[in-house]
């Protein structure tokens, strides 16, 4: 298309081509563009399929299993896989497939729940630290430093040993120890964005500080925040399974992938 000796008529045609493309683009919403880009990415699709299967397993757990998850059958312990028990049964007579299916509920609840809570706390404190600076920033900064310098597993073990191991306590404790990482991220983003020109422009127009914070700055950190959220969801799921494995997390008979491995 790029002809070095291009003449006037050719320029018009190429200009016309650009125009049609812009028309096509205008019909596409941002969401549809994102979906199309996503569908072209093979790794992303395979990730979606795996996640979809796990979510399906969690939602449909009672439909795809034949036994109640918390009832053990002492007449059928340590059975090899069979048609009645696709994954076999364990030493207590639990059907393993049932426990795996219901265990995905535990993992997903802790993963998504903990991250949802920590994003709310983390974003709020991150905004406060990034916008106000000074003493507020110092206090929040030292608190995040302190929590982040300790191995999370150990701190979680301390808190869980206080409130007693259960699904709720594990979820809340993981949330209370994950927010510092989010706070750091949000604070950093706010510090760079604070100097951006659109913020100055909004200020000139007379937008209030709170409105700038929430309506102009917050949407701009959704990108890094969502990346971080997926990462910390994975981390929370691993942490829960490690805790349950050590006997400090979700207690039997509630099924969890961690306490099943134990």
């Amino acid at each position, binding site marked *: 298309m790029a002809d070095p000796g291009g003449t006037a008529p050719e320029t018009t045609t190429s200009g016309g081509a650009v125009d049609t493309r812009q028309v096509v683009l205008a019909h596409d919403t941002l969401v549809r563009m994102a979906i199309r880009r996503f569908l072209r990415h093979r790794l992303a699709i395979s990730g979606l399929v795996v996640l979809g299967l796990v979510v399906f397993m969690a939602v449909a757990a009672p439909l795809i299993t034949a036994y109640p998850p918390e009832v053990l059958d002492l007449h059928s312990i340590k059975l090899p896989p069979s048609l009645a028990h696709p994954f076999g049964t364990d030493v207590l007579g639990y059907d393993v497939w049932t426990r795996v299916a219901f265990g995905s509920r535990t993992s997903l609840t802790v993963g998504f729940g903990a991250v949802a809570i920590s994003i709310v706390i983390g974003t709020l404190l991150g905004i406060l630290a990034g916008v106000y600076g000074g003493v507020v920033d110092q206090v929040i900064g*030292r*608190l995040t*430093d*302190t*929590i*982040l*310098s*300790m*191995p*999370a*597993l*150990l*701190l979680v*073990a*301390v*808190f*869980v*040993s*206080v*409130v007693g191991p259960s699904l709720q306590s594990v979820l809340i404790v993981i949330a209370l120890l994950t927010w510092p990482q989010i706070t750091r991220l949000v604070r950093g983003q706010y510090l760079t964005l604070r100097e951006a020109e659109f913020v100055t422009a909004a200020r000139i127009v007379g937008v209030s500080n709170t409105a700038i914070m929430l309506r102009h700055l917050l949407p701009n950190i959704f990108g890094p925040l969502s990346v971080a959220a997926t990462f910390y969801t*994975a981390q929370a799921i*691993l942490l829960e*399974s*490690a805790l349950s*494995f*050590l*006997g*400090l997390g979700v207690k039997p008979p509630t099924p969890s992938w*961690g306490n099943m*491995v134990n």
Partner: protein
Amino acid sequence: MGTYIVRRILISIPVLFGITVLAFGALSLAPGDPLTSRIDPEILAQMSTEQVEAARRALGLDQPVPVRYVIWLGDVVQGDFGYSVVNKLPVTQEVLVRLGPTLILMTVALVVGTTAGILFGIVAAVRQYGVVDYLVTAFSTSFIAIPTFVTGLVLIYIFGAALKILPTTGMITLGKPFSLGDLAAHMVMPVVLLSIQLSAPLARYTRASMLEVLNTEYMTTSRSKGLRGRIVLLRHGFRNALIPIITIVGLTLPDLVAGAVITESLFGWPGMGQLAVKAATGRDAALMMGVILVVATGVLVSNLITDILYGVVDPRVRLGARA
């Protein structure tokens, strides 16, 4: 360099205080009377009200939390960490016995893990999109996703239960005279497990860091000067790639401690990690505080070493105004 180190030390002291305050506060929030978790319920039932009060005073439990924290801190400064309630032993003694095994395990795992991670990372970067690169990426991604204890159980199953070539629990074979070979055999699986956990993310970061350096102009310059490939790669390339790598190693050290908690419980290794689990399941506050303090100190010291290593590797840190 001297002021740089002193400043780093001064920064880490308030963090250490913060951790103890946080942990102490949390542990004192435990519901119920702390006395009941410290005295055998049968004995407690037979004690008169005055005896219960006396026991509470003797344990310092009648004071408010901040006062109890100051008492605890004063004792710690004098080397007294209190008594483990579960075992009736001084916490200092319990911790000291466990420190050695953990340090041996962590040091060996740190050396093996960083060496393996960096080596695989460099090879993957140099042979980008080659077979080795894909293998390294596949393995490191899998090991990041698979929980430590699952990998550990698979190791135990293969080498301990099926092949029966490696011992699965403890540090030495009980009842046998101590020998280095015996210790080494017991160490193989815990070290491999911890090293995998350390080297998997490290290989990925090293690869990324090396790729970035490999595309710089000074690499082209040194190659066009006629320097040999290996010298270009290691002395010009790797040295510059090393700075982010040190950061990553420093950042993953707390994770390594957490990994040690799982690894030690899995292999019955008599170290700090196992002690932490014991303290948490037994709701043993004094023991928990002792473990936390030692681990926190360890993490902060290794952060300090990381900071000093920056200065060694990068002259800009050593000489720069920001030092």
